[in-house]
């Protein structure tokens, strides 16, 4: 099966979806967990996480050992809107 190229926006969508649907505990998802689930490198993920926290789409929680991330209410709204617009673009055979 051919590998599918993911756009920057679809990676963000995957990260937000992971923090919303697949967090291992209530404190959020760790960077290691997100790397594995969202399938992105550490350096790229770090930059994206920083942006998402700045934009208020993710909340950063500090536990005993590491930073964890969980989706904010604004992030949930964004994810819902993103999925709607992705459907729209998909209809044209395009990716956002």
């Amino acid at each position, binding site marked *: 099966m051919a590998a599918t190229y993911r*756009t920057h926006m679809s990676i963000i969508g995957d990260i937000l979806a992971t923090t919303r649907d697949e967090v291992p505990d209530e404190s959020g998802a760790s960077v290691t967990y997100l790397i594995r689930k969202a399938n992105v490198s550490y350096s790229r993920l770090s930059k994206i996480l920083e942006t998402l926290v700045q934009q208020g789409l993710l909340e950063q929680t500090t536990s005993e050992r590491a930073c964890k991330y969980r989706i904010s209410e604004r992030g949930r*709204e964004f994810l819902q809107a993103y999925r709607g*617009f992705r459907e*729209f*673009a998909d209809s*044209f055979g395009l990716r*956002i």
Partner: protein
Amino acid sequence: MEFVLETALNLLGFLVGLVLGIFAYIGFKNTGSPTLFRLNIAFFSIGIGFGVVGFGYLTESFILNYVKVDMWIQTLGIGIQTIGYFFIAFSHGIKSFFPKSRYFKSIAVPLFIIPGNSIEHIIRSISFILLVYGTIETIMSYMENRKKSTIFVAAGLGLLAMGEFLGWYSVVFPQSVLYFISISTKIAGLGALFIPISQVPLRGVRFGSNI
């Protein structure tokens, strides 16, 4: 009567194009996606193109009281619409403008040669090729994702292509109903493009554009 219907259909095309453009713009503002930005330009151009023809006809007939409407209005409107069709095709990534096959070239090239020196003919033939390209790419996407909404988009682009083709012929047979059918077909095409939007909840959310 025919003139009124043509004007009304053009104004309807203006509205439909504008709504599609606004939706794509909201998507672009929310996600910063370049694809939605291109679709935004495409639909605004298509809508404005219809609007130029519709409002141009209205202005010349009812305000300036011209007996015969200037042809340049039609040419300008179609030219603006072509920009829109280009951006739809461009979003799919134009690999080559003409098919490589000699057989297909023999079909495509006359679209440019037959029109001769008329700018309107040339613009219409370019629009037709861009729309056919977009239709084929969308059908190929449907083969991959099997989404029903993709079929509507393919049908919409196909109808727009047919509308352009009929519009091109209507210049050859100016007194026929071909132009009216052409505009109606294009409106039906825009309507089909509108269907995917009905499945998306319109939201007024605003996010930063630097994501």
